[in-house]
């Protein structure tokens, strides 16, 4: 999960850097000032007790936090779709929270829909403190502009369901209802997720067991869709390494009901760092060791003037998994202020299913 963490942080931080937050030199170091100084922000330490629904809300003393949802959907004619909804929070400064415009919180939202023949995305930014964006734990509500993710009555805090999610861009919109039959999953060591050998960590839990249904509209044409969705919640104050050039991240819904998250972190100085989590159908999660994972690009696609490895061969030895992944739309490019590739994929082999792939730094 740490790749996702890095990605998201990077996405957010770089997005803000494009806005003017970071200096160019900091950008070159990878994380736009995030690696400079964490003093004053709350530290991530092992042994934290998570409390729900309180932890669904923001943790403003920590530097960075996100609510991240991806959904693999299909309509009545079995056409496949993907949907993404992301809300990031970043604190500009540590210290007591200030009210109104003086608030040090900045919010960024990304939304996208993907179909085999098209990929649409949108982004928006907001200052905290005035109501343009924010998250409230109870009743649960996360919003930026007109995009919203909110709990429906009666909402189960431990399942973080049911939820209603909507977002729209210039030429797309979607509204989904999310239900879950299982509780959310604490990642890492009871939600304490170590990110690297250098000690970076985050608090992290996810809900990979969402079922989704609703409507998705592209160019004014609506489709009734249903499928599966995956939500990540993560917050941290920790800086990230400066020599990481990018990463390739997978979240997979296996037809057997199991879930798989894995990533490859590309580093300048050394071999890529591989890790992941195997989540059983009953919700038990096991960390995968690097030497049990193999991730190999099999084909590249040129998108937005870059070569991206959109097709992959993946093996997880300990669980007897050997699959080939294919993107729904190889051109799932997020041309946001910080640009990256994020889109739905499907896979075949020892296991079948759908999932999401995220690639940065190309």
């Amino acid at each position: 999960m740490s790749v996702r963490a890095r990605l998201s942080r990077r996405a957010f931080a770089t997005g803000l850097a494009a806005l003017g937050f970071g200096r160019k030199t900091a950008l070159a170091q990878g994380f736009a000032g995030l690696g400079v100084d964490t003093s004053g922000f709350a530290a991530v330490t092992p042994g934290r007790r998570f409390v729900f629904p309180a932890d669904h809300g923001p943790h403003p003393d920590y530097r960075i936090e996100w609510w991240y949802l991806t959904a693999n959907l299909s309509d009545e004619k079995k056409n496949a779709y993907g949907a993404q909804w992301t809300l990031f929070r970043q604190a500009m400064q540590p210290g007591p929270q200030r009210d109104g415009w003086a608030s040090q919180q900045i919010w960024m939202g990304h939304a996208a829909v993907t179909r085999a023949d098209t990929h649409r995305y949108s982004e928006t930014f907001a200052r905290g403190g005035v109501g343009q964006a924010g998250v409230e734990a109870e009743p649960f509500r996360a919003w930026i502009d007109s995009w919203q993710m909110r709990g429906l009555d009666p909402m189960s805090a431990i399942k973080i369901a049911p939820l209603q999610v909507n977002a729209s861009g210039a030429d797309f919109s979607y509204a989904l209802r999310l239900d879950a039959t299982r509780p959310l999953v604490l990642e890492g060591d009871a939600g304490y997720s170590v990110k690297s050998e250098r000690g970076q960590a985050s608090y992290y839990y996810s809900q990979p067991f969402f079922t989704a249904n609703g409507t998705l509209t592209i160019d004014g044409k609506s489709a009734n869709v249903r499928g599966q969705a995956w939500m990540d919640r993560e917050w941290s104050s920790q800086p990230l390494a400066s020599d990481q050039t990018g990463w390739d991240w997978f979240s997979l819904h296996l037809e057997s009901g199991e879930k798989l998250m894995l990533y490859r972190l590309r580093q300048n100085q050394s071999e890529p760092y591989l890790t992941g989590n195997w989540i059983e159908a009953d919700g038990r999660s096991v960390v995968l060791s690097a030497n049990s994972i193999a991730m190999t690009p099999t084909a590249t696609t040129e998108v937005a003037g870059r070569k991206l490895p959109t097709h992959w061969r993946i093996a997880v030895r300990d669980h007897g998994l050997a699959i080939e992944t294919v993107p729904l739309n190889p051109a799932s490019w997020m041309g946001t202020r910080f640009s990256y590739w994020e889109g739905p994929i499907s896979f075949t082999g020892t296991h079948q299913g759908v999932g999401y792939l995220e690639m940065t730094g190309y």
Partner: protein
Amino acid sequence: MKQGLWILAVLLSHWRRHPTQLATLMVGLISATALWSGVQALNQQARASYDRAAAVFGGARPAMLVGQDSTFSQKLFVDLRRAGWPVSPVLEGRVRVEGRSLRLLGIEPVTFPAEAGSIPSIRTSDLQTFIAPPGEALVAPETLRDLDAAEGTALRTDGGALLPPLKVQAQLAPGVMVLDIGMAQNILHLPDQLSRLLIGRTRGPRAPLEAVTGDKLRYVAPDAETDLERLTDSFHLNLSAFGLLSFLVGLFIVNSAIGLAFEQRMPILRTLRACGVSSRMLNGMLLVELLMVALVAGLIGLVCGYLIAAALLPDVASSLRGLYGARIPGELTLTPHWWAAGLAMSAVGTLAAAATSLLKAIRAPVLAMAQPYARLQTQQRWLGWQGIAALAMLVAAIAVLIGGNSLISGFAVLAALLLGAALALPVLLACVLRIGERSSRGPLATWFWADSREQLPGLSLALMALLLALAVNVGVGTMVENFSRTFATWLDGRLAADVYVNARDDAQARDIQASLRARPEVTAILPSGRAEIEIGGWPVEVLGLADHATYRDHWPLLESAPDAWDEVKSGRAALVSEQLARRLNLRLGGRLDVSTPDGTWPLSIAAIYADYGNPKGQIAVNIDAFTSRFPNLPRTRFGLRVTPGKIAPLVDDMRKTFHLDESRLSDQSTLKAESTQIFNRTFTVTAALNTFTLGVAGVALLTSLLTLSNSRLPYLAPLWAIGLTRRQLAGIELLKTLSIAFFTALLALPLGLLVAWCLIAVVNVRAFGWRLPLHVFPLHLAELLGVAMLASLLAMLMPVIRLIRMPPAALIKVFADER
């Protein structure tokens, strides 16, 4: 080619032998180009700065949402964002820093639409330092200089609020300070208030505006002409008109100088042709010569124009600031376009002024001789045509006056009137001289008149210039004088209360009023209100006035129904500003529908009052009726009547107790002083250009006389030969010129009054919407007459002295040289 250069050298040698003629030509061209291009530079500068101010950050002005009042609740911003509107908030206000008034702009950089322009320092450096305390106050380099502060200094407003550290931002308009919206709200004491919302181009589904904000916000289309541009148009047209007038007067000089030069060079041309130079080559070289002169003089003129513009800029800037709140930088920036246009204007002007001479030279038969008397005869025929043209111009002036009602047509009336009068002048002078000739006895007297008449063609252009300059001077002088008189009494009426207060909010207003009631020196508290509405697409202020003797006795009513104030008190009637009445064609007793949050408010018009200098329309209604119709407006404004002598201590006390800065608390005398200063400078530019024009006319007269004096010798020599002394001759010359000038000046007086009437009753009304009463100031007229005679005397001095000192040999030589 070589032949061409030689011809050119021969032609140019003329100027070497007649340096005064060259000087005359240059002076004419330079003054024409200088004044015109100076005015253009001023206009360009102002327009550019309006764009800069409107766009703020260099981008195009995006679409906006504005409120009914000057500010509205921030909640509307959040509501609109939540409804899908890509809006970004802006709060605008004014603060005084180091005694200077600055336009404070609070922006929100995170949502700020990219197409509205970029704020480089926010984009490239830390957004964080802009947003997070202490923040940054972005100002133009000019503003930093004005404030006499270094970058990084955190200044205080004169009201005591601490500003963020200053940071220079080159593309900002001067006089603007940009800072984060939250800080702006604190400094302006407008918590959670916004002035407008910029709409980004991001597309997406959004709820209808009315569904989100009701009627609280109004959509303003992008890139529409800015208010400033619209409001200041008339001011710039005024400047342009004067610039054009000066240009024309300058061309009169050029015309007379070139005319003389060509005539004197006829023998050279003849010789050149006789030597075998083709007429095409000769004419081509004449043209080249003219263009060379035009370019050189044009360049010098442009430099002078720059100097003139730079000298006038502070006055122009302060007029624009005072009248319209427009800020223009204190430094001129000139575009290549300006240089090119200036040179082209100079070249075209030269060719136009030289057209007749050039044509004459081109058509002249090789062996033709100058024949003075023949010239007089053609002149007489020409005079007839000129008289007809003059008549046509005057008829046109009357037609445009009746037919048109735009500002341009107002100036057209003025132009036609002046041109008609100028054309008529030689005709009138010729008539007078003929009458004089008929009624005179004795040879010398008869010669005096006849010779004057002979001299008239050579002088007429200079005299026309003098007539124009004088008439415009009389007109503008009368207008300015009328204005300053009317303005003083008007200001007394409008600023009748002694102290004006605008509290931060209703609570503070109540506190202040409660504390004032305990003070015996406060004889009355007069609550007032102000709302901004639109009537017929025109911005209109609605004033709520208390029913009090302060207003009843002093309000500057122009016309009123007998029970006007009682009608207003009832809430059924309003007082309407003159501008609004003119624009909407409202009459006493007529009806005006005002749309309020409460619905339409039908008002009858009880009176019309003067509201000089206000670019917006205005109506005044009773304060109680006002508050019931605009219930949501803050009730923070009120005036005070205070026992004389106690005002200053009261103001000091209030400032200390309630922390009110100048924008919230001001006393009458300060306001009056400020207003008077603004209006005094309003016409400074006009007056300055006016003086320039008169100066140019003086030069025109001087140069005409100088050039004439050379050709006068053949006429004077016979008189000298029959026994008149040089001194006598000089006296006669002086008397002759002075009497012609005097007659011209005398004609200029009624013409000037007509011009004044045109300015006051036509141009001002169309430009500003108000009309001043017209008074005639005989002393001022007499003074101008004196100035005109002095100018003529000065212009005569050199030729006359030259005549007195002329060696007799020179006079005798005339007979020897007789052609």
